[in-house]
């Protein structure tokens, strides 16, 4: 049989046909769709690097003690071989602070998402499956939260709770959970009409069992996609609150806080704000690219 496939195409066909089960093939198909999008690979690569940097921050930072210790005789040094990204108003190495700050940004970003998901997903499940007054109540609360821009809402909540890193995390999760509730609710409305939900009911399964064991696994995909997109926004809003002085307090090497403190010294001492801002920018961009790629890979019908 003549084949008009390219050599790499042939290799791929062989790789797929070597798999015994359909399931493996489906995963391969997802990987293939994900790999096809080169930009999303870049996004993934950035998060791999970022995670690595965050885990080994104190080993990688050239001046690990600079996270907290000031060196006043080295204030405002421009970028040089000694201090690649310069030093700040207390003579601390900006690169070291950004590297150590990655721990805060990544972990708080993930925690915010975790919090938003633990509130939003059960709320959406209950809303979609139980319906009625509960559904109306949850969705109206969500509508109210949607009507306020997330940054403004997070700002208000942080101010009310007294500004701190923990409170800004709570505030951002508060602004984000309705998205998950709404996504999950929409999917549940669709899935609950499936035969297996009716079958489970006819076998006497309880409502919590049906919600968490029968429905939840079938609505995971959009949650994962949304989380990968939201990770960047969570980090961005955290940084914004830090920048405005409502998030982490200044000695903490949080990216937004670094940028916020450095803002006073613009434009002559540009490196403090520029490089910390660049770290935020690249992370948010990477999260968007990753999310787009995941959506294409996991939900091909959206393309």
């Amino acid at each position: 049989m003549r084949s008009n496939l390219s050599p790499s195409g042939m290799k791929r066909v062989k790789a797929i046909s070597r798999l015994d089960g359909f399931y493996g093939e489906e995963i391969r198909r997802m990987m293939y769709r994900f790999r096809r999008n080169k930009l999303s690979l870049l996004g993934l690569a950035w998060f791999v690097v970022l995670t690595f940097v965050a885990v080994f921050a104190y080993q990688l930072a050239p001046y690990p003690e600079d996270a907290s210790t000031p060196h006043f005789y080295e204030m405002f040094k421009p970028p040089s071989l000694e201090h690649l990204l310069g030093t700040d108003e207390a003579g601390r190495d900006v690169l070291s602070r950004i590297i150590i700050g990655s721990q805060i940004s990544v972990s708080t970003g993930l925690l915010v998402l975790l919090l938003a998901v633990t509130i939003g997903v059960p709320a959406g499940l209950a809303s979609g499956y139980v319906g009625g007054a509960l559904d109306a109540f949850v969705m109206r609360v969500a509508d109210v939260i949607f009507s306020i821009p997330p940054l403004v809402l997070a700002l208000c909540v942080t101010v009310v709770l007294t500004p701190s890193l923990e409170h800004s995390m709570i505030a951002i999760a508060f602004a984000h959970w309705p998205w998950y509730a709404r996504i999950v609710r929409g999917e549940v409305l669709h899935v609950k009409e499936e035969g297996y939900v009716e079958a489970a009911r006819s076998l006497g399964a309880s409502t919590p069992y049906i919600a968490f064991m029968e429905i939840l696994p079938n609505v995971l995909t959009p949650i994962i996609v949304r989380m990968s997109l939201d990770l960047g926004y969570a980090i961005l809003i955290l940084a914004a609150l830090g920048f405005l002085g409502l998030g982490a307090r200044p000695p903490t090497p949080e990216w937004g806080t670094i940028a916020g403190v450095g803002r006073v010294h613009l434009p002559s001492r540009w490196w403090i704000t520029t490089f910390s801002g660049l770290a935020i920018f690249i992370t948010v961009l990477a999260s968007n690219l990753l999310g787009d790629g995941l959506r294409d890979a996991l939900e091909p019908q959206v393309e």
Partner: protein
Amino acid sequence: MLRVENLNVNFNTFDGQARVIDGVSLHVQEKETVGLVGETGCGKSVVMKVILRILPIPPGEVAGGKVTFEGKDILHSSEDELRTIRGRSISMIPQNLTSLNPTLTVGEQLTDTLVTRANPDLSLVQYYRSRSDKELCRELREKAVQILRDVALPSPERVMKSYPFELSGGMKQRIMIAMALSGNPSLVLADEPGTALDVTTQNVILELLKTKTREKGLSVIYVTHNLAVAAENTQRTYVMYAGQIVEVAGSNSMFSDPKHPYSIGLIESIPKLTGSDPQGIPGRIPSYYQPPSGCRFWPRCEHALPICKKEKPDSVKIDGHIVNCHLFD
């Protein structure tokens, strides 16, 4: 054992009120197999869902009637009481093959069925704890394999680890039968078992269901659109048209000597090897929003009398059949 009396079910939709079930009465006795026959859309499945109370309400609404099972009033039972009935006393074999969850393996679904059946009030936390109990899990798995073997599934250990899409339609149907029978119910509602399968597999499945239910001495309601299937598998048959029972008789007598014009039409529409082409019934099931006045079948009936349009026919007893038709008044 099961008694449905004068059941009325409406669906309230944007287009108005659909009177889908109109005065259906039926009963099933201990160890009796009963057929419920009618064309697609006549309300057979709705009756089954009302018996288990799994009909979505709204849009559905039980407007009147009574369902009693072993003395219990099903329509006025609480959700907690119902959960002890569903799957344990009455279980349903669903008609479509999407009734297995695509994201869980067959083993997980079977063992979960067993766990929740052992304790209907299991909370989620207790459920997760039971899943991490190795001893319990092994016991459950062994029992699940036993259950699969019982319905003659080849290599049950492999099937346990499979996801539903890896199995054939016949295997899935077998698993659903196994699940429905695993709770030792006394009444099985078989909602067109095997309709989604090809005819040969369907025969095997029906045969399996027949031997299993006979072995355990269960009562069964077979829902089907094929009178021949009902004749072969059941003792008594109800023929249903547009939400009403039109005729009740012993299955053999129903098949060989139907009285109601609709039952006759159903028999004549079965293709035969010899003789003339099958004669269908002209027309379609009427709209439930504005059902025909009087007998719901008159627009399609070739023997329709003037009275048929005006009055709902009463039940008439003739040759052991109970017929709702003015022709026999």
